[in-house]
């Protein structure tokens, strides 16, 4: 991928990774809570065990993966670092382009309930006079060799997320607006 390419992308976590996650969760070596302590010292073991059990056996990654894949996604390289982003076009013809950025420990999932109302307000019971959305995900995650775009490098502080943001993706020659 050369520096100017924007490539369509879909999330497809290998089944082996799902199996590995489940196995690791079920093999966790748990700590114990000190008697009489709670959240003031950090996450209680009792709470975490229950949540981890649900992650392993009740939570359905594939359903959420499919929901994320319902949005058009892309990967590109900016300043030598790969990143993934969503670009959701508005149902309104004169929509304002809008770039959504998240911080740590967030991800694109933070925008799950915002994208619909922003890009298609009429369908969500709002006045379509304003619209928008170009929605970017993660400047600072992504290091998996198996993709979602992944090459972090040193020398890119959080400032970079703003340096990467406003105009650059949209001024790419392949980028309509």
């Amino acid at each position, binding site marked *: 991928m050369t520096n100017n390419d924007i490539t369509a992308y879909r999330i497809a*976590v290998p089944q082996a*990774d799902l199996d590995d*996650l489940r196995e*690791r*969760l079920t093999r*966790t070596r*748990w700590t114990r809570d000190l008697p009489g302590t709670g*959240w003031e010292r*950090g*996450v209680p073991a009792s*709470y*975490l065990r229950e*949540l*981890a059990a*649900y*992650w392993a056996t009740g*939570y359905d*990654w594939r359903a*959420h993966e499919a929901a*994320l894949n319902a949005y058009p996604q892309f990967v590109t390289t900016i300043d030598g670092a790969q990143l993934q982003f969503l670009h959701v076009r508005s149902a309104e013809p004169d929509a*304002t382009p*809008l770039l*959504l950025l*998240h*911080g*740590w*420990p*967030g*991800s*694109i*999932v*933070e*925008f*799950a*309930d*915002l994208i619909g*109302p*922003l890009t298609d*307000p009429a369908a969500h019971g*709002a*006045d379509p*006079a*304003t619209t*928008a959305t170009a929605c970017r995900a*993660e400047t*600072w*995650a*992504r*290091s*998996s060799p198996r993709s*979602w775009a*992944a090459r*972090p490098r*040193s*020398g*890119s*502080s*959080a*400032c*970079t997320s703003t340096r990467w943001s406003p105009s650059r993706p949209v001024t790419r020659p392949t980028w309509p607006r």
Partner: protein
Amino acid sequence: MHVNALVTFPTGDPADMAALTEADRARLEVMQQWQERSGAYLQLQGTRPQTIAHALTDSPAGLLAWIVEKFQDWTDPAAKLPEDAVDRDRILTDVSIYWFTGTAGSAAHTYYERFNDPAMWTPRDRGTVPTAIAVFTTDVTIRRFADKVHHVVRWSEFSRGGHFAALEAPDLLGADLRAFFRTLD
């Protein structure tokens, strides 16, 4: 530009301190206590990110704890547990993304980069971009300090939703975004 969860710092000007409201002082106090009582993740990721990266990349239970602590600490205080503020599946999808991509380490390194980026700590000219600031229940943003560094044209305070406003109060955040950008057309 529209931001939420903005952290503002004292300007060093005694006149600014003297002008703080009672609510401002309370936020400043929260911010100072925060450093002492719950800033562990910040110091660790800012100073030795690679050490914690090994544990976070090897143990999903460890990664879950590392992240869910923030959904406990930073969501609307009215929520007793993280899932009272944010749907449990959303939290787990967020953690799963960090897990499957193996990026808890590189995410931690961004704090180190920030700690060591001279540009982060040098005074700069006041911004010229029209800026809207949304303040949710857990935010410690102080208007007087924000005005010194940003061209603040809109200030909205909300009594519901916390640090993860997009997940906790998408209706409020979405409406504020739309109202703000409408004025810029």
